[in-house]
């Protein structure tokens, strides 16, 4: 293959996408799936708990230590 320039690379991908048959359906599924995952699920349902609730690593570490040391029942 002679991929000498960015233009050739662009054409390679462009022609490849144009010629796809079953691939078109698959790309639609991939794009819908990525949209649902990142724009819906990640954004609204899966916040990073420690990043959202604490502003620096020391606070995060202290919180985790509290979790680890505060929930032990002495039998």
């Amino acid at each position, binding site marked *: *293959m002679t991929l000498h320039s960015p233009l050739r690379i662009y054409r*390679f*991908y462009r*022609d*490849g*996408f144009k*010629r796809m*048959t*079953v*691939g078109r*359906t*698959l*790309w639609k*599924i*991939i794009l819908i*799936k*990525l949209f*649902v*995952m990142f724009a819906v*699920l*990640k954004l609204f*349902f*899966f*916040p*990073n*708990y*420690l*990043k959202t609730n604490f502003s620096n*690593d020391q606070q*995060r*570490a*202290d919180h*985790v*230590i*509290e*979790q*680890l*040391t*505060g*929930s*032990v*029942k*002495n*039998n």
Partner: protein
Amino acid sequence: MGEIDLGTVNWARAQFTLTAMYHWLFVPITLGLSFLCAFFETIYVRTGKQEWKNLTKFWMTLFGINFAIGVATGIIMEFEFGTNWSNYSWMVGDIFGAPLAIEGIVAFFLEATFFAVMFFGWERASKGFHLFSTWMVAIGSNLSALWILIANGWMQLPVGMAFNPDSARFEMENIWEVIFSSVAVAKFTHTTTSSFVVGSCFVIAVSSWYLLKGRHVDMAKKSIAVASVFGLLSGIATAITGDESAFANGHYQPMKMAGYEGLYKGSKGADIVALGVLTSGKKVGDGQEPFAFEITLPKGLSLLAKRELNAFVPGIEDLVYGNEEEGIMPAAEKIAKGKLAIADLAAYKAAGKAGDETAKAEALERFTVNQPYMGFGYMDSPEEIVPPVASIYYSFHYMVYAGTAIILLMLLLLRSTLKNTLVDQKWLQVFGVFSFFMMLLSSEFGWVVAEVGRQPWAIQDMLPVKMATTNIASGNVAATFFIFLALFTVLMIAEVKIMLKQINIGPEGV
């Protein structure tokens, strides 16, 4: 923090199980089929025959469908780490960061370059470069799996690290110990070789279906010939790496091994259960016989676990209640030491906040002594360290039976291929169709053994699952569980429909 909300723990567990098992429906096919595509194309390049090119393009299309539907399903697990498993993800961030970053980079470059050449480059790239790209996709996909399996191996055997009580993180001390731990090596080799078998069975199942229908007979026979050789070699390799995996369990995760073998009382020269039905409702220490029915092989378990016929293999009760003669500490003693470690960790932090350096140093010294048992300090009773025995016992034995059956199938297929009698053997074709579902289930059960078998631990002996979760409302986790269930169901229907349509069209349609 107040009481641990077990509702949250269990929903988080269920959600992760759902996501991981769904993700794993696609991964073994990708790992195995990628190499088969490379083999098919190599034959095409060497022979120059058009029929091998058509055959390669057909399997590549099915590979692409599987890849497209499965791609990014693993990312959901990373979302879950941040939301549901924040304690865990914080604590292991230093260990997992490097392997997962390498995986991301490898996957990106692989998919952006060689994957595109593999699908778009048939007429634009030279034969040699196209073949190289196909091989790179196969090797890259499997190397990509390497890093996540190393991370999983570390959770089973946490080596090459130290716990930092200031940052509450396990910090990497030796990356080579992490990469080359015997558990990580056994995990990678066993997972990939068994995935090659699943990929082979996928090709065999579709080809056998064609033979049953009398369609694309020549292509189906050629595909089976290659897939059965690959499947046989991979099946044998899976048995060898499975033995290695069991040997590692015998040394580092004896409770898991005792669980999947249904061994309650340990012994020297322990027998292995070849076939057995567990006693329903059996509990640790209740005195009931573990098996309602069993056929055993003498000394087989000692051989599997220690590679010595008369070696002692600990049972569940030895590990829970201890065995002085064999030097096994009772779980109750470990729990007591663990509680001391947790109390000393709290004292260390309190002294730090108060600025009392002497008390801080003393607390750290005490903590260091008992720190290896810290995870046990979260257990409410010694019996809590026992995994769900029935789940792992039946999963493990199914895996062994399926693995044995598949080696037999591969041998039969090879024999029929060499004798050119495959077209007439309908029963073998039916077995071929069935084999894929049998092996995919076996592959899923392998993860049940690996992950359910190490319960209650998220990180073996260090961090129990119940301490790894985020302190959030269980309703939130339950809601996202059902969202995933709906999403995965839709995606699964889409995959099956597209895959079946393409299989029905056959090689002419690509």
